[in-house]
């Protein structure tokens, strides 16, 4: 198949509904920033009035900046790697191959998506641009959702780090099995959904073009250019990687700020003192995982610190829920999915891992 250079890709010709929603997203982004900044200031100032004044305030700001940069610097390599993979997929992967080899029925799709992390070992920052690109290539919804949720845990690197922290045992086995199951269940639930209900309009347009190639004559966004010279294809891939990076970095940065703000203002002991009950402990650890926003490759070592004092079910919930959803990754989801869907993508794994944790606490004696 010979594809013309994509001339239709200028901003002037972008379809107007996409532009309107783009404007809405931009407004929302500003609104969110304002809310976060205002909340942070309110909290810092109320503290400052209580405590030691200007010096104290300055130390708080410094702590905030240190934690924010910590999360950001830790995540940037994974985001740029994910973006480069996404760019390479855009340029070198044929849509027809995705169409031909990947299942479309909800159940097999969800199972394949849940296991795809074994082939693409990406963590929760890198997986988002990759999923978005695969959607633009026409990937079925179920596969993408299951992949998005499972890949940060069900991949060789994280399996190894969990093993080195916990060894063979309930936490190690439980983490992998339940991450896979929960991701597959959520993916399966998206089997009936329509792409236009789920994906952001800009992503959806391409997804539609990819899965209905007949209609895409006059509006070809495809970056797959099999006949272009290799140098040009690589340049195109890195260009697209850069665009992806900028799209996602905004969410990553806002998310890191939010996480750092929460950490600076909410004492960990508040969450941890909540309790030891079979239900409450699970909720507390889920909240902690959400707030901390630690990378899935290392959160096992962190969880170890709680293994003695907290119920096994709650430690499991921390290790299963945290990599799927945390402050920074849920903000990054906004770059791929509609807002309503992002709420589902947070709530469903949250409820399912809560169920898992409570069930484990009440029934399992390993």
């Amino acid at each position: 198949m010979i594809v013309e250079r994509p001339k239709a890709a200028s901003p002037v010709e972008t379809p107007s509904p996409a532009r309107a929603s783009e404007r809405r997203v931009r407004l929302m982004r500003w609104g969110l920033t304002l809310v976060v900044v205002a909340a942070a200031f309110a909290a810092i100032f109320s503290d400052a009035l209580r405590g030691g004044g200007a010096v104290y305030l300055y130390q708080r700001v410094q702590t905030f900046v240190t934690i924010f940069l910590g999360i950001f610097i830790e995540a940037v390599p994974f985001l740029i790697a994910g973006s480069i993979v996404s760019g390479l997929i855009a340029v070198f992967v044929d849509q027809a191959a995705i169409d031909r080899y990947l299942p479309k029925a909800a159940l097999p799709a969800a199972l394949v998506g849940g296991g795809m992390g074994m082939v693409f070992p990406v963590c929760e920052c890198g997986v988002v641009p990759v999923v978005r690109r695969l959607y633009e290539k026409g990937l079925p919804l179920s596969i993408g959702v299951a992949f998005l949720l499972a890949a940060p845990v069900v991949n060789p690197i994280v399996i190894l780090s969990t093993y080195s922290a916990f060894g063979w045992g309930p936490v190690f086995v439980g983490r992998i099995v339940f991450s896979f199951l929960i991701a597959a269940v959520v993916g399966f639930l998206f089997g009936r959904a329509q792409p236009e209900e789920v994906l952001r309009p800009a992503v959806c347009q391409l997804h539609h073009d990819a899965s209905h190639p007949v209609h895409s004559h006059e509006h070809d966004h495809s970056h797959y250019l099999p006949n272009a010279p290799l140098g040009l294809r690589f340049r195109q891939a890195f260009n697209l990687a850069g665009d992806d990076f900028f799209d996602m970095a905004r969410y990553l940065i806002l998310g890191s700020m939010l996480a750092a703000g929460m950490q600076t203002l909410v004492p960990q002991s508040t969450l941890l003192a909540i309790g030891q009950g079979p239900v409450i402990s699970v909720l507390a650890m889920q909240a902690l995982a959400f707030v901390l926003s630690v990378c899935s490759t290392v959160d096992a070592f962190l969880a170890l610190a709680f293994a003695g004092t907290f119920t096994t079910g709650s430690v499991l919930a921390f290790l299963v829920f945290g990599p799927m959803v945390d402050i920074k990754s849920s903000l990054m989801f906004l770059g791929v999915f509609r807002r309503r869907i992002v709420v589902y993508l947070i709530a469903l794994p949250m409820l399912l891992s809560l169920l898992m944790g409570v069930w484990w606490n009440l029934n399992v004696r390993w």
Partner: protein
Amino acid sequence: MDVLNRPRFQNALKALALLAMAVFLYTRLASGVLFFYINQRFMAYTIFAIVGLVVVALSYRPMARRDEADGALHSHHRLGWAGLAIVMAPVALGLLVPPQPLGAAAMQNREINVASQARSALPAAVRAAAQKDAADRNLLDWLHAFSASPNPAQEFAGQPVDVIGFIYHDERLGENEVLVNRFVVSCCVADASVVSMVVRWPDAASLPDDAWVQVKGVLQPGEFNGRALPIVVAQEVIPTALPNQPYLYR
């Protein structure tokens, strides 16, 4: 038309933003400040990020005016002022606020581990700590060693201690006592927890929060917050510079 919308400017802007971020990361790395933020074993990832950012930045080749109309290689992902401001926030904050490792201010928010829980450590780390000579143990090694003992307060009495940490005055401490602390990081500072030892020293009150000290002394049975544990009776408290790696790594 907004200047930002012109493809040439978009490309130049994106390339510059990526390069700025790469240079920022490089300066963190070169000055050693990087270890204020992340565990040293992730340094290789940061180097990869710098290379990746530069390669991607260079792929936005400057566009001649005549190519602009063609727009063959430009994309429809537009970077606006708001986006630019957000993306540059880490660089701006990093340059405006002088880098400082976590210290006493961050402790007010965290659990203080003066004797870690029985299973809270890697068994291998506990064994390694037990094999170390008492004088070579850092704060984390000591807590590992304590955690392996049913009655650390008695068992470790009389052992010599030589540790480095920063000062923190906790209101639960007794007279002439102060906490000497290190943050322990497994990934980045977001997951930092703190390990501490109670130090008894006649001049404890004169030591300011966040001052880095080397403490030499002997362990004696004591208590903190109603709990029996070994505390350091200091023979020497020597002010020291901030270590190159302010955190201990799990």
